[in-house]
């Protein structure tokens, strides 16, 4: 069985490419697209895969991460999928990749202008949990009426004393569109702001694409008296000793012993290799 290069047919790629160009031209706006059935279920990155397939060329070097890790099921399978249907080179090193598809993290290593980051997005509409009707959320975006989201964040403060939203933390792109950064931890939100790399977002089930162009203002919503803050840990990574990366808490035995390790496996192993040298 053979496929067209990168699995999708050329008509589908053109449709995706036109939508991606409009997405970049209107930062943070969700462009509808004709999402195709892919050989893996919704929720496993069908949106990201379609965006990657529309971008991919034979000279690309692809990296795929899931929660920061290169060696999880989703990441391994998507990487294997593209090396099979497009024959592209793959890597686990952030610095070597031209194209990085990600689920729920932005790599710790700073991205460059010649790299593109593709996000897998389960729910592209940041207002969806507050307003279920698509026609209504479209209108709210048209009017830039984002009061609902401010009320939600305010209710967090009223109930918990601080903004309790810790992932998929809403952002305002170029001062205009309220946008979901996908379920990345809010720890990663500052990396969205004026990033040198182009960032593309694909939601397969919801059939939406959007983009944050490089060097674009991305603000995390907050209040004057409750400014935006990222997570901090009392721990350091137990493997590489990093004090400034995003840490996962892992239960390591039956007695509830825990350890904290970097969620970005490439960053962590790179630091360990450096330390040994």
């Amino acid at each position, binding site marked *: 069985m053979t496929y067209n290069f990168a699995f999708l047919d050329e008509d589908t*790629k053109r449709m995706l490419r036109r939508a991606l160009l409009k997405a970049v031209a209107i930062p943070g706006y969700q462009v509808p697209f004709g999402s195709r059935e892919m050989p893996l279920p919704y929720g496993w990155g069908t949106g990201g895969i379609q965006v990657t397939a529309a971008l991919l060329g034979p000279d690309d070097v692809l990296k795929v991460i899931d929660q920061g890790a290169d060696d999880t099921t989703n990441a391994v399978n998507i990487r294997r999928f593209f090396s099979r249907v497009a024959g592209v080179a793959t890597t686990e090193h952030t610095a070597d990749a031209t194209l990085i598809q990600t689920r729920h993290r932005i790599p710790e290593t700073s991205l460059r202008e010649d790299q593109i980051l593709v996000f897998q997005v389960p729910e592209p509409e940041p207002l969806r949990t507050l307003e279920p009707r698509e026609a209504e959320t479209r209108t709210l975006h048209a009017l830039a009426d984002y009061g609902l989201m401010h009320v939600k964040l305010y209710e967090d403060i009223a109930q918990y004393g601080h903004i309790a939203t810790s992932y998929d933390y809403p952002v305002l792109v170029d001062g205009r569109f309220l946008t979901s950064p996908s379920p990345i931890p809010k720890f990663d939100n500052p990396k969205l702001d004026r990033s040198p790399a182009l960032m593309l977002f694909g939601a397969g089930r919801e059939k939406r694409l959007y983009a944050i162009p490089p060097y674009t203002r991305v603000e995390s919503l907050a209040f004057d008296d409750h400014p935006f803050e990222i997570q901090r840990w009392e721990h350091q990574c137990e493997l590489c000793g990093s004090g400034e990366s995003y840490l996962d808490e892992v239960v390591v035995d039956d007695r509830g012993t825990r350890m904290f390790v970097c969620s970005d496996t490439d960053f962590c192993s790179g630091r360990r290799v450096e330390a040994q040298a």
Partner: protein
Amino acid sequence: MMLAAFANPVFDSQRTFRELLQAMARPAVPRPLPVLPPSPAPIASAAMAIVLTLCDATTSVWLQQPEDEAVRHVRFHAGLKLVEQPQDADFALITDPVSMPPLEAFARGDMRYPDRSASLIIQAAAISSSPCVQGEVGKGPLALASTQDSATPPQPSPASRGGSKFAGPGIRDTETVAIDGLPGDFWQQRTALAAQLPLGIDLFFVAGQQVLALPRTTRLLEG
């Protein structure tokens, strides 16, 4: 005899698309297109590369100069729908910018769907990037303008020779570029559209092998 299209449709359009994407993501910076397919007059090769990369049976295209051979060529190779009216076009191919219709004639999308708007492919006379400020001072009419009293602005549009400065998403600080061969009031027209953001029109300029994009969000800076 009919001319050929991309020699290698899958990879030529992929490489062209990546340049277009980077052009749109980093506005006002000219980039060379990797593949220039044959094209019948009055369509430039670089414009044809964009049409072959992005247009097909599902897109409506308006040709400013629908000459027989050009029409046959794009219909055969891209299978696209040609439309009579600029406002119906997803893509418009402007082969003679000086006599182009006003930007207002093209679709700007609607408030719920600002993506349902036209993309223009404009064949400019020349694109020249980042003439440095010093060079500008030493070089004729615009140099005079910058030393003159600002209350009496000079006649030539800021985007004529010497270059104009752009800012917006995708541009770190500012970019300076000169795009030649446009109607005299082109930049006024475009600035007027900016009031309607996020509605708007996205522009690709081509000249020779170069392509340069100006999405609706890119602002022309005064002075």
